[in-house]
């Protein structure tokens, strides 16, 4: 660290809906090739944070530096063009379109920027998720929950992102599928893409991550290397209420 510029630096980020503030002075750093996870209970502001970094929501204060560039007023498309991709909690698939069309659209911005390599990229995505290849002509809404999540991740990978942001990829999935998704996340790290992972499934997230943040009621309450957080009694406590306070 130090010499290499971080992929993403978020500092002093505040977001308010009306007068209600959802995020207070949040700071997060993602180094190249790292998996960084943000864990925390429902309503803590994790999704808000991702949406704000992506440009879907506007912030009331704070800075976002992506690939060394300080970004002020930006639209989602500009972030996609720069290499940031978000897989939202809802997956946001194009239900009435085929798997293949969904993937094609994942490369929309690359196509616009003049790259014509979507066939190779799609082959790579099919390698990661062979199940998608089998279902390439199926309409997205007919897929099972796990396949949908694979398609959502695969579609984001079609953009060959420099930073991939995943919002609750394990949400509502069976353990076997969760395991597969996390295996893919760990594998993706080898390809050099940096990952910002928001999760409820704290233990699984901390197992694959290099660094972790705990977000509670809009504030970072705890941060540190994932390996340390995983055994931190405060993390376990905030999740299970096993702290013996009663």
């Amino acid at each position, binding site marked *: 660290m130090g010499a290499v510029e971080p992929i993403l630096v978020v500092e002093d980020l505040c977001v308010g809906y009306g007068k209600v503030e959802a995020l207070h002075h949040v700071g997060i750093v993602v180094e190249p090739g790292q998996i960084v996870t943000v864990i925390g209970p429902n309503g803590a502001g994790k999704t808000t944070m991702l949406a704000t970094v992506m440009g879907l929501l506007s912030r009331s204060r704070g800075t976002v530096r992506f690939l060394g560039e300080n970004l002020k007023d930006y639209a*989602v498309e500009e972030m*996609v*063009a720069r290499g940031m991709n978000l897989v*939202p909690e809802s997956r*946001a*698939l194009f*239900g009435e*379109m085929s798997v293949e*069309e969904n993937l094609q659209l994942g490369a*929309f911005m690359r196509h616009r920027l003049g790259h014509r390599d979507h066939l190779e990229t799609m082959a790579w995505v099919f390698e990661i998720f062979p199940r998608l290849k089998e279902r390439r002509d199926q309409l997205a809404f007919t897929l099972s929950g796990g396949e949908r999540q694979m398609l959502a991740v695969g579609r984001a990978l079609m953009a060959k992102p420099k930073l991939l942001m995943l919002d609750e990829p394990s949400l509502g999935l069976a353990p076997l599928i969760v395991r597969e998704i996390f295996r893919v996340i760990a594998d993706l790290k080898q390809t050099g893409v940096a990952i910002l992972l928001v999760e409820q499934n704290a233990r699984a997230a901390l197992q694959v991550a290099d660094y972790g943040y705990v977000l509670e009621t809009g504030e970072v309450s705890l941060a540190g290397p994932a390996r340390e957080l995983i055994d931190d009694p405060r993390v376990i406590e905030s999740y299970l209420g096993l702290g013996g306070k009663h």
Partner: protein
Amino acid sequence: MDLQIALLLGQDGITNGAIYALLSLALVLVFAVTRVIFIPQGEFVAFGALTLASFQAGKTPGTLWLLLGAGFVVAIVDLVVAWRRRKWRRVPAILGWNLVYPALMAGLILSIEPSKWPLLAQISLALALVVPLGPMMYRLAFQPLAEAPVLVLLIVSVAVHLVLVGLGLVFFGAEGSRAASFSDVSLDIGEFSITGQTLAVVLTSGVLIVVLYQFFGRSLYGKALRATAINRTGARLMGISTVMAGKLSFLLAAGIGALSGILIAPITTVYYDTGFLIGLKGFVGAIIGGLASYPVAAVGAVAVGLLESYSSFYASAFKEVIVFTLIIPMLLWRSLTTRHVEEES
């Protein structure tokens, strides 16, 4: 009514129905992508027809001034935004599309005599004048309201319609005009003859529908529009900007509207405010399709054309009453068959 008349009315109905079908497709498209209920669609029909008629009459069409004016306003608005956000790279494109292009069109039209040109060239020129007004309209009226509720967009849509009708009166005057027939050919089947104009309308509509189908099914930009209609946030996360999708759908709608106008220009006398009722009949079709289904909308629109044609025979004074009252049972049917999941639009 004998068979002869029945067939004649049927021919009329299908000709009009084909036009309504095209319009209903554009309306469904614009609504699905932008959530705008595109009331000004009819003005594009009128402007298309009147521009072609102006060329043929040797007059400079009012749409030229409209294009110059709208381009100027868009350029100012966009330049202010570019200046505020320090996005200088956008300046050449802003100037090119909004000032240079209209100026070139003005130079071309004023220096030549379009009335002496062949029909196809006149049509192309008319489209080149009218179609860019679509994206410009999106930029000025709707882009700043992209996140607004459907109802606000609808009121804006009605307001834009009024503005265009007013401007139509300013630029084209209160007199109607009619373009020359595309061809004098007619196809005789027994005692019944199909006019060349009918054939032109039905064939062009058919070809256009196939082209649109291919565009949405095959091209990346067509798919991008579909994606925006299905899941706006998802599309944005792919880098498909709402603005681009909005402008593209308005471009297509303006094109479909203007072409429809050109097709009917030789059949009927078009006034500056004729488009509204024509557009609304397209709407009846679109509503039959629930503002969502293209094929149902198209079939519904043809049915509207036939109903209108036959009711003009039986009760010509009440033609409009019948057509627009039809929408009420259609809405009722919609309301009884759709299970409405209530939440704020």
